[in-house]
């Protein structure tokens, strides 16, 4: 008997629809196998590593619509040598980190003295931030310090973060900040 998506949703609420079954003592395996297939149907599986502590547990991410949809299941990677499929509460909840209505869809800007955010476009945000960075850099740039030594830096801009970025991003990020002349580059490892 085919199991509809609606029926499957009932499984997830903790009570199984009995429409698939005729009575007591029946083996549920065939119907359940179909339910299983439904849950994972047309999903792609990718591996990831937990975004929280540095134990570095492996996870499997099931993404719907052959990778074009959203993640529908995230659980521990049983092949991973460190966690062997296990996760703590945070790792187990990882899907809610990504699939969350509270994630702002667009950049936001708060003007001086404003009481609220304003949604803005990416291009506008880049252009406005760039203007401010350049203005501050140009105003503060120091070629020589009080002792006359070459320093080629700006002291009035600060960067804090980020231990949650990937290695590649961290490296690019420090390169950008140093190219801008920042010396105040700090992150989570300092606290």
């Amino acid at each position, binding site marked *: 008997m085919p199991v509809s998506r609606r029926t499957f949703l009932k499984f997830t609420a903790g009570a199984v629809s009995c429409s698939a079954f005729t009575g007591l003592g029946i083996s549920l395996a065939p119907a359940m196998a179909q339910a299983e297939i439904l849950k994972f149907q047309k999903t792609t599986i990718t591996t990831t590593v937990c975004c929280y502590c540095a134990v570095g547990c492996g996870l499997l991410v099931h993404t719907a619509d052959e990778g074009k949809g959203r993640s529908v299941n995230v659980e521990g990677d049983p092949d991973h040598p460190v966690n062997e499929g296990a996760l703590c509460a945070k790792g187990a909840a990882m899907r809610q980190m990504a699939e969350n209505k509270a994630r702002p869809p667009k950049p936001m800007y708060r003007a001086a003295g404003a009481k609220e955010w304003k949604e803005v476009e990416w291009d506008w945000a880049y252009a406005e931030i760039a203007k401010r960075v350049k203005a501050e850099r140009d105003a503060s740039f120091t070629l020589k310090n009080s002792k006359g030594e070459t320093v080629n830096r700006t002291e009035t801009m600060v960067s804090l973060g980020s*231990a949650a970025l990937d290695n590649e991003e961290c490296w*690019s990020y420090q390169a950008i900040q140093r190219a801008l002349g920042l010396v105040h580059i700090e992150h989570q490892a300092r606290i």
Partner: protein
Amino acid sequence: MTNYWEDISNSDCVLMMGCNPAENHPISFKWVLRAKDKGATLIHVDPRFTRTTGHCQLSAHLRSGSDIAFIGGMINYILANKLFFADYMREYTNASFVVGSKFSFKDGLFSGFDAKKKVYDKSTWAFEMDANGVPVRDDSFKNPRCVLNLLQKHFERYTLDAVTAATGTSKEDLLAVYKAFASTGTAERSGTIMYAMGYTQKTVGVQNIRSMSIVQLLLGNIGVAGGGVNALRGESNVQGSTDQGLLANILPGYIDVPKSSFAKYEDWVKASTPVSKDPKSVNWWGNKPKYIASLLKSMYPEATLEEAFQMLPKVDAHRKMTDYFWLNIFERMHKGEMKGLFAWGMNPACGGANAQKNREAMGKLKWLVNVNLYENETSSFWKGPGMKPESIKTEVFFLPCAASYEKEGSVTNSSRVVQWRYRGPHPLNNVKPDGDIMLELFKEIRGMYEKDGGAYPDPIKALNIADWEEHNEYSPRKVARLLNGYFLKDVTINGTTYTKGQQVPSFAMLQADGSTTSGCWVLCGMQPAADKHLGMRRDKTATEMQANLSMTPNWAWAWPVNRRIIYNRASVDATGKPFAPQKAVIAWKDGKWVGDVVDGGGDPGTKHPFIMQTHGMGALFGPGREDGPFPEHYEPMESPLKKHGFSNQRVNPVAYLLPTEKLAIADAKFPHICTTYRVTEHWQTGLMTRRQEWLLEAEPEVFCEMNPALAKSIGINNGDRVLLSSPRGEVNAVAMVTERIQSFTIMGKEVHQIGLPWHYGWVTPNFGGDSANLLTSSVGEPNTGIPETKAFMANVRKA
């Protein structure tokens, strides 16, 4: 970590101190319990009874901020009872080195102290050198100035009575822990130390770790399976972000930032590169010129090394490095000296010590850019508690970014294992991966400099972003190639010619003349071919010897050179025979090394094992730190005591301290010792986890743990609302009255310990309470500048 997570299971004794792995690194506990299954003794030393404690056969109740007294007592116990691993200590540590006659220690102060500047002249701690420039050794240990004798003299003051008075731990518990851990001071047995922020977030943080390193060196526990000094890192890539130099004092690969006193590239290279005259000392940092050159070439491939050096910003040589660190940045920001702030994936409004000061400081910026998954207390500081938005002029940009599994790239875990993460779904709402955000923003800035010119545009124009981009998008795979490094021209090394553009196979092939790139030399070898990133490997095959240690050398890749236990050369004797054959890490067999990738290479007995140390020896005496070559007990900056039992030097004399900082020292208004911590269900400031209902339902709001006697004395019942206060601020919390927290008797005086988690913030949930860091103080450790958020004084009363 010197070792790796699975290796904890190889230990005979697991000492967990300054950490709470069952709650904060829960999957590590898989391996901790496997050690226990195999017969290991588990020990937890902590102010609280936590989810870790119940699983340990031994536990000791320790006052926050008295770790050095505790471990100092262990060092004394080991030395007095001669429980060290004598061969290891003599051959592999600097125990026999003779310290110069200028060194002294009196009443809490080491020689060379400048009371006015609050710095030490470290030259007074130097070793005595022979005519060849090699440290003088006394293998008979008769010279009173040899390290072992100085160590013994220093720590013989750490008697059980003195330690008990400082720590509040009973003598019985002290002895039980000392005895259990010291039992690993034999060839066959090993003990490991797991630590986290309970060690580091103190004004003596580095010396806490030093003291445990001394124990491990005495017992022969470094470089061996089931041993090591293991920092449990708290962020998925805080190992990697540190490797990539996101700090004011280091560039990628732990290269010191250039100082203003270096006029030329060669000045910098010379000052950064240690020299050893001992033929057996590998002195790996002697290779630094190659790593510096390759780093500069990865940033500025078209520039000469001299030009690239000029383009790097310099810190002032005449200022303390801590001036550039976090606490001083916020001090200067608070004074209005900082104008722009990027808070990229970070929430300093909750995560930094003295959080109210940080929040006020941000109101003095011209602009703030916050990149994050969610709106948070930093992005929205201007509408937080007590803020008047109309009077705050700071412009704020919030840029939403992709989640960790909506992009690809690598992260490095605490075992130094670099693992590739793949993209699952595309970023929600078409927000962008951080890499794209930074690249697009940088291109915008660069465009303006190209069009309009501006102050010193050279480094902006010259920065090598061509190696970051593919199809106009940020390409982590391409950047990874650069982190590993490639040849900039054809180079012949030992008869093999590497062609221009080819990946550098290992950091041994990096060049000092600018013919190679390598963004981060420790990662060289991770991507030996353009399409081969070893962090992607999922192969669990291992030799029998490796499998015996639960080592999976073909799963992903560990820096350096896929070595899984660093300093592993210390696990074998001079003939290459493992000290502990039943859990051998490496062994010399049929003319070659087998097992893990050996440290240092060459035949057995030809190299000292501690290859990153200039003299090749484990540092019982550590003359490089700002606050002394030996650890010494000082009180936390805030404590219930005006005077402690070890000296008249109440606190670390060189700690980072601002004259303006309000402190509670033996102050009746703030009578309780307070500490902060985490719970399993939240992470760091809770910015991400407070948004997740599966986690929030389990730990919905800030609580304050206190013992029943204290609760009773101030009329508090379990579940009541309480108000915690310190000289910096107040936090409203739910009282959790529990026997798991007990009072201490310190120097004959009863004091209570209280504590609270620091995961909460006013943005969400609206009833959840605010950051514990509103209470903590911005005093810092002298080497690292890390704030002392794990030991401070507070009051608690009914709200």
